[in-house]
């Protein structure tokens, strides 16, 4: 599996837009879209958990080339809290209930658009990482918080 590329992010953006899917880039992949210079291995998407959105998501993933069985498709349509996909052209984590963010609508209102990519606000990305309390997030949080402050300064 090769690393996730800009071209693949564009494919997600275009396919998801065609199907009217509400989603946000989250996690370090979201921070990178906002300009955070760091490394990561896969893309995390925060998906709005409505029946219509989840059905559309399953269709879009099939069209993007993910080899989903009927059972896997059903799990996506149900909007399980956390789904890891490694059976397509790139790795994707689908997150329906991220730690640290209560409602999709709140994160959607705070989103930032970068070249048409909908991205969680850095405060939501930080809140989510802080809530997980994982070693790898603990290590990246000080730099991410500094980036948030720098990023807000640039926006003023």
């Amino acid at each position: 599996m090769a690393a996730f590329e800009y071209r693949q992010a564009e494919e997600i953006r275009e396919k998801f837009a065609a199907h009217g899917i509400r989603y946000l880039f989250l996690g370090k992949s979201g921070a990178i879209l906002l300009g955070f210079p760091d490394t990561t291995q896969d893309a995390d998407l925060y998906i709005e958990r409505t029946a219509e959105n989840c059905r559309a998501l399953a269709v879009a993933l099939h069209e993007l080339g993910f080899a989903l069985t009927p059972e896997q498709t059903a799990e996506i349509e149900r909007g399980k809290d956390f789904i890891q996909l490694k059976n397509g052209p790139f790795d994707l984590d689908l997150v329906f209930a991220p730690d640290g963010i209560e409602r999709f609508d709140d994160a959607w209102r705070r989103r930032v658009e970068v070249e048409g990519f909908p991205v969680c606000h850095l405060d939501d990305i930080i809140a989510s990482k802080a809530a997980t309390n994982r070693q790898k997030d603990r290590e990246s949080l000080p730099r991410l918080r500094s980036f948030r402050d720098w990023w807000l300064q640039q926006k003023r």
Partner: protein
Amino acid sequence: MVEAGRMSSEMPQNAPTVIPQEWREEFEAAARRPLPLRMRYAFIHTYKPVLDDAPFRAWDSTADYRRWCEENLPGWLGYGSV
């Protein structure tokens, strides 16, 4: 780079930090790069034992996912809670 951003009073509060000069320079350098190049530098792929060994996994709850990571992944991957 950033086309639009919406701030809200509901947003979680983060106290401002002192930005180390080295990090500030890295942020500024990254901001000068176009997004496709930033992504080329940022997204890498290395094999992660156990995590990469199944094509599809789904958990009913995020707590179940965290627990699975704790119980199944090597500690050095960093997915365990602190």
